[in-house]
């Protein structure tokens, strides 16, 4: 009779998992995201050859949504708590950094991490309250939150009420004026995607995914679900708040109508659903696709009403026929190209 030593079993299991992880790593092309990042960092060199401000704006816009959608994905994708109110943190980040910038002239790019932390604190507190309910109730409570914050910001005279506040523009020549924000957003996007990868591969991320599958079972398996969820809420608020901080200075004004419109939060949700929520690459692909769609609709049809119609239509079709999103569906069919396998 062989005696089983617990330590031996544990070592064997560890070796087995390390082997599995090594196999997964072999299938992963790390060079691809790095190459994309390098390309994006070099992109502004085009400005030497002509005026590519529009292209720069588009990449910047996409990068800002990559930050927000990936941030949203940590709560909505990994933990499965769909929030339609994440633009509240966009507004908190934007107003916090924007007010300090207006008063003391400290650039919002420096303030962004701090603004993210402020948003995270708000997220933690709000999460403590709202994460007591789940499913439809949570979604509706997040909508109520946006409405409440909209009215509060609209009537808070200190931050300019509904007219908002205009911020000084930087004094760089037009050709280079967008670049600080461009680099800020590209770096933030890279950081967010990296962080989202690390979270997905941590014990914390595993816990979140367990919660999204079955919260009661994961709680009985010993996961502190309440703490996990609230922490996920705070982390996702951090990223969204960080994006909001720089966004205000880039537009040179902050106003409730920029941050607290429903389209912003819908975009975050839709990007994740379109790309594949709960995956690392999903929000990135969703953001790229949606920004391209939006530009296409605005350029060809011109009206924002059509844009709303089309966004809603894409979302409906996606939810009905494509609930796993692009990355999720391809992965299920085992046809996901290696360069998109970031999980």
């Amino acid at each position: 009779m062989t005696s089983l030593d617990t330590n031996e079993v544990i070592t064997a299991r560890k070796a087995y998992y390390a082997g599995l992880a090594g196999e997964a790593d072999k299938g992963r092309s790390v060079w691809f995201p790095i190459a994309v990042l390098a390309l994006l960092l070099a992109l502004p060199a085009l400005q030497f050859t002509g005026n590519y401000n529009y292209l720069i704006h588009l990449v910047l816009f996409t990068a800002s949504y990559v930050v927000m959608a990936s941030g949203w994905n940590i709560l909505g994708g990994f933990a499965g708590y769909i929030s339609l109110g994440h633009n509240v943190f966009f507004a908190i980040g934007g107003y916090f950094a924007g007010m300090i910038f207006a008063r003391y002239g400290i650039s919002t790019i420096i303030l962004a991490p701090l603004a993210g932390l402020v948003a995270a604190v708000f997220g933690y507190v709000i999460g403590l309250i709202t994460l007591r309910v789940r499913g439809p109730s949570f979604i509706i409570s997040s909508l109520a939150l946006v409405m409440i914050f909209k009215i509060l910001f609209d009537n808070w005279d200190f931050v300019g009420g509904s007219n908002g506040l205009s911020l000084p523009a930087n004094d760089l020549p037009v050709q280079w004026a967008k670049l600080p924000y461009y680099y800020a957003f590209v770096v933030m996007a890279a950081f967010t995607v990296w962080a989202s990868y690390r979270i997905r591969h941590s014990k914390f991320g595993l816990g979140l995914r367990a919660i999204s599958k079955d919260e009661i079972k994961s709680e009985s398996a010993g996961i502190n679900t309440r703490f996990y969820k609230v922490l996920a809420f705070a982390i996702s608020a951090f990223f969204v708040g960080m994006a909001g901080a720089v966004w205000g200075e880039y537009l040179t004004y902050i106003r409730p109508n920029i941050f607290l419109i429903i389209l912003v939060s819908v975009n975050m949700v839709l990007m994740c659903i379109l790309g594949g929520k709960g995956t690392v690459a999903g929000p990135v692909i969703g953001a790229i696709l949606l920004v391209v769609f939006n530009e296409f609709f605005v350029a060809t049809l011109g009206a924002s009403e059509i844009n709303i119609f089309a966004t809603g239509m894409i979302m409906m079709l996606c939810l009905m026929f494509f609930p796993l999103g692009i990355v999720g569906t391809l992965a299920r069919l085992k046809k996901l190209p290696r360069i998109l396998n970031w999980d």
Partner: protein
Amino acid sequence: MGEIIQIVILGLALGGVYALMGSGLSLVFGVMRIVNLAHPSLIMGGAYVAYWGFKLYGVDPLIMLPVAVVILAATAVILYKLVFEREARSAKYSEMTVLLTFALAMVVEGALGTAFTNTQRVTSPDYATDAFFIGDVFIPKGQLYAGMVSLAIIGALALFLKYSRFGYAIRATTQNREAAELLGVNVNLVGLVSFAIGIGLAGAAGSLVSFVFSFYPSKHWEWIAILMSLVVLGGMGSILGTVLASLILSVIAAFVGTYFGATWSTLTFFVALFVVLMVRPQGLFGEKPELA
């Protein structure tokens, strides 16, 4: 004292309209477990039916009401067949439908906005700007008529649910879908009909709203939260609860609006929604805590 009576009367009249707006939402949730975030945008559709009926042909919105009901109910049948029937098999059904109806709301908003632009409109029959006076207290005719018509419609709905054979089937499905199916209720048909009735009520509410509030397509976001607050406070699925909640909240909102300013009166609804969801998610009369 006169002032307080005045505020209460204004609140109750408005509450009557809100009750009709919310009861369709509540009915649809009760039977089909759909949190229909598109309901307010469909109310907006009903408002446009009444508006154009009045504007183009001079038909009174109260007479346009049945027309709006029919148009919206027909829309509901199409939507049900196209979208919701197939969704009923999905695992995370009720969470899924929230997102789906949210997207539907955007589609409706975009379609209405494209067709009619985002300018503020209001139907203006004579009584909309007229009022009765009883002593010091004035009662705006528009709001009074709208409130009374809406309470009459809800009364008729309640009688239908309580005494008709089909009403039994609807209530049975609300209480327990599987058991109703086992006893021979065609739950799919019940779902279809109650969805059509619910959205038809949105049409009715729309034509009343058209002369009570000014409206534009993107206003429905504000109504979503207001209506959700009524339905959640009343207990999802309970129509009586919705009516009581609308009357209570509207009166409170009227007081808040008078003493603190109009912006804060809407905040009453939003804060109520938030607090009720957190403290008592089943609302006043709800029995099913499963939503929590």
